[in-house]
Every structure is written in structure tokens, then in C-alpha cells.
């Protein structure tokens, strides 16, 4: 009996129609254990981002089942999927995707607001998170005033607002220099070790290997290899 906390079973996804159709995933079955950091690697077009979109409830498979926190989410309506994302999942993006008009603290506070609009003390909690990530002196800075590494730390703080159990990261270190990239790797590793979160990272970056529990390699929409790292 596989651990069905997070994963896909027999998932196939196609884009386009007829001759232009591309099969991004071909019957992939892959599960991610609770409290682990897993890497999804593979060449461009291998289906990494498609798999991440399925796990993030942002895409529905043509065939197969997606499990989030042990529940099959295929049959859910868009509104129900929004609630699943709100309660269970958070994202970290390569392009950071911070709200450009908001300060660092407001970006993180918005993360809290999206998960629980009635939550009191959002600003204090946002400040605590940013201080924890060494951004105590950047609270009022807008994203365009921050370095790429700082932006990504703000984005991670926003993703952690509301304490979601699952964190999905798409090339989180691709835009960062070596030191900043390593820093982000360590921060995400700590999320697993300290808070028991489940982290899935799509990456081309080999630096991640030493921080990950497993590496899943995709090729042509199929799982080619699963390695245990730590």
C-alpha cells in the first residue's frame, strides 16, 4: 500500500489537439512521503512542471488520480480546489511572483490573509517570518528594491504564511547566485526538518542533491529513475 499523502497515480496529461498534441505526462505514478524534500529533475519538456501543476491542484489530468493530503482531488470543483490550495499547498516560483506594489511585509501579510481573512495579528506574524529569514531590515522595501536572493526569501516567507503542509517550488534557485541559492536550499530543507513539511522542488540545479531525500528523474513524460539521496 503506497503512502498516498501526496502524489499521482496513472496520470496522463496532453496539451494541444490532433497533430499538434503533446503528451506531457504518460501514465505517471509517483508519490511523495510526508515530511520529505523531493527533487523532480529532467530535461526541458520532460513533464516536471506539469507534474508540479497536478500536485498544486492547478491542472487536472486527462487520466489518473491526484492525491493531496491523502484525498483524491480529481472530482473537485474549481472552488473546492481553491480551498485545497488555500489550506494545504503553497508555491515558490522561479520568478518570485511578489506583488510589485506591496512592501515585503505586506506581501507576507497577504499570504496570511489569503489563507485566513479573519486571522488577527497578520502584520506581526509576517514581521516574525521575515525576521526569521534575516529580512528584518527590509520590511518596508518593495520587491524592486530587493536583491534576487532577498526576493526569494520574501516569497518563501509568503509561502509559509498560514503554515501549509505542502510546499511546491519551481526552479527556486535558477535566478540566484551560488551563495543565495545555497541559502534558499537550506531554508527549504529546514522546513522539512524543523516543521515536518513536505517539499517538492522542480530543478535543474545539481546543488539541491545534498539537501534532498529523493530525486525523481522524468524523461518524455515518464518516471525514468527514483533515487534516495539522504
Amino acid at each position, binding site marked *: 500500500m503506497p503512502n498516498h499523502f501526496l502524489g499521482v497515480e496513472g496520470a496522463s496529461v496532453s496539451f494541444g489537439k490532433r497533430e499538434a498534441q503533446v503528451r506531457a505526462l504518460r501514465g505517471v505514478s509517483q508519490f511523495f512521503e510526508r515530511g520529505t524534500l523531493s527533487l523532480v529533475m529532467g530535461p526541458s519538456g520532460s513533464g516536471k512542471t506539469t507534474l508540479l*501543476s497536478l500536485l498544486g491542484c492547478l491542472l487536472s489530468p486527462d487520466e489518473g488520480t491526484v492525491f493531496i493530503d491523502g484525498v483524491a482531488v480529481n472530482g473537485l470543483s474549481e472552488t473546492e480546489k*481553491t480551498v485545497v490550495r488555500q489550506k494545504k499547498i503553497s*508555491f515558490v*516560483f522561479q520568478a518570485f511572483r511578489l*506583488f510589485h*506594489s*506591496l512592501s515585503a511585509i505586506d506581501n507576507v501579510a497577504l*499570504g496570511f490573509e489569503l489563507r485566513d481573512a479573519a486571522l488577527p495579528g497578520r502584520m506581526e506574524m509576517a514581521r516574525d517570518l521575515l525576521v526569521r529569514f534575516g529580512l528584518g531590515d527590509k520590511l518596508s522595501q518593495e520587491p524592486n528594491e530587493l536583491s534576487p536572493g532577498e526576493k526569494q526569501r520574501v516569497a518563501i516567507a509568503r509561502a509559509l504564511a498560514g503554515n501549509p503542509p505542502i510546499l511546491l517550488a519551481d526552479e527556486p534557485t*535558477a535566478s540566484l547566485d551560488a551563495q543565495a541559492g545555497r541559502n534558499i536550499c537550506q531554508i527549504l530543507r529546514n522546513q522539512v526538518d524543523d516543521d515536518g513539511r513536505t517539499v517538492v522542488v522542480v530543478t535543474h540545479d545539481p546543488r539541491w542533491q545534498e539537501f534532498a531525500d529523493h530525486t525523481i528523474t522524468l524523461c518524455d513524460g515518464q518516471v525514468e529513475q527514483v533515487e534516495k539521496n539522504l
Partner: protein
Amino acid sequence: MKLAWQNIVHDRARFSVTVLGVSFAVFLMVFQGSLLVGFLRAASRLIDASDSDLWITARGVQAFEFGTPIEGRVREMAAGVPGVLETSRVCMAFSVYRTPNGKQQVVALVGADRNVGERFPVPDVSGSPEGMSPDAVLYDVSDRDLIQVTAMPAEVEVNRHRARIERVINGYGAFLGVPFLFTSYRNASRFMGVGPEEGMFVLLRVDKGYSTSDVQRSLRQRFPEVEVLTRDEFARKSRSYWTIKTGAGGAILTAAVLGFLIGLVVVSQTIYANTMENIEEYATLKALGASQAFVARIVLTQALICGAVGSILGLLTVVPCIGYAKSLIPWIYTPWWLLLVMVVPSLAMCSLASIASVRSALTVEPGRVFRA
């Protein structure tokens, strides 16, 4: 909703364009609204100034300005109808006025019995310390340039009869460019060449113990050759003539609607452009778990902020402009409620303008967040 506010203030140039669009629309709507309200008010001003309950006019009279004579016996017989407390007469005709320096001008000459009403502009000799004569002629201060009287009393001619202008009044200025002259009924009928017992409008006050509609019904049965209207009915008829039948009201309304539409287009364009510029952020919001209502609220809040700021700016601009316009258009009138009421269409305009933007923000695929 901090995001909504921050998004619009972050792009000040676009915010300014949106606010200017809204304020322009509000300006135009309030200005045109003031023209319409003033026009309606002016069209029935003299009818409204009377204290009468009922007006008897010749059949087919469309407005106060187009009264035609009715037989004098109507007034005498109407006075005998149960419930009629008091009668009075008003007449009006376009006349030729000759200024003291010999220049001629068409005027609207209005004559009325003294008991027509306290507010009706009739020479009032009682308690007049300056000793105003019963046949004095009055004109409105805003028509000074047309009447061309430099000192009072002034001897002038009306329809080749000698007349004496003795007093200036306020609030009864020229409507449609022809100045009013007010005098006693006796004097006016003499100037117009109407027999003293003939009437043009017979006004009736109804005894408190009687119902106005009952008295009206009774008069209609007794005098089928004339029209018996309540004061409000005649005022409405007069307003309807000037605004609908002449097309003047339609023209004013059209300009107000155009103002609304221009504002709608400007605001739609800028809010839509703003939304599309931030469409990736709406996708991110949805990916992070924002509900459709949350996303819609952000776009709508932005539109309403622009609407509120634009409305305030538009109102602050239009009020002094209308004050200035009064010197050119004396009957323009802005009631306080018009200023408040115009905020509603401006906010509605912004809400309407945001529909396309809300739709775009709601339909954006959250899955696009992974496209770098």
C-alpha cells in the same frame, strides 16, 4: 484591500488618467443636470409661485407662455362653484418694449391680481415705503442689460403704452432669452388690449373643507370648453412642453448621457489596461488560494476608489464653474441633492467599467504561474 489601493497609487499616471476621466464625466453630468433642473424649474416657475389650487386655461394651452383668452364669465361662474374660496387672474403675452433710449425689445409681459400668491411677482403697494404705484412695472436684475434702465423710476413704453418701471426683483430672469416684465393685471390687460373682464388664466383657491379633486371634477363638468388643472398638473404640463416637445430637455439629457458614456469608456480603458498589466499577479493570487470573490473585489475596489476620487474632484470643479455660468445662464440651478445623487452614477459607471476587467481577472489560469 491594501493590494487594490497600492496597485492604483503605484501607477500614478494611469490613476490620474482614470480620475480625470471620472471627474470629467461627473462634471458634465452635474452641469447638464443643473441645466435640466434649472430649465424644468424655470419652465414652471410662475405657476409654482402662485398659491392657487386650480388653474383654468383655454383648451390646448401647452405652457404658461402660450396662454389664450377665455371668457370673463368663466371666472364669475367658477367663483360660485361650491368649494371655490377665491379667484384671481393672470395674463401673459409677448409685447414690444421700448427702452428709455428708444431701443425696442420683445418682452414677456405678465400681469396678475395681487391675491395670486405671496411669491408671485406683482407690484405690492401695501407697506411700500417708497410708495410704489399699483401699476408699477418690475423686472429681474439679471435682465438689466436687456431692459436698459439706469435709474428708477423710469418711463418706458410697452405696446406703445406708457409704463413706469419702479422696482427690480430677483429670481424671475429671462427664460429662453426673452425678459419678463411684471405688472398688475389691470395694467397688463390694458397693454395687451384685452378687455378688463376677459381672462387668460383663472386661478382658484379651494376652501379647506373641500377636496381639490372634487372641485376640479365639478368645474370640468360645468365648463367643458376650458381646461381645469391643478397647479401641479399645469406645472408638469408646462415643463413637459419645454423639455420634451421642444426637444430642449432631450438635448440636455443627451449631453449628460454622453458625459456618462465618455467617462465609462475612459475608465473602462484605464482599469482594463491596469488589470491586464497585473494579470500575472491575479494568476498568482489564484494559485495562492484567493477566491474568485477576493479577486473580483480587488478589481472592483480599484474602480470604486477611482470613482470616489474622480467624483470628488469633479464636484469640486463643477460647483465654481456653475457659479460662474449663472451670469450667462441665470436659470441654471444646482440643488444640493444633485451633487449627492451624481456620485451614484459615477460609482455605477466605474463598476460597469470594471466588468471586463473583473472577467479577465477571474478567467486567468492560475496554472500560468509556472511560466517564467
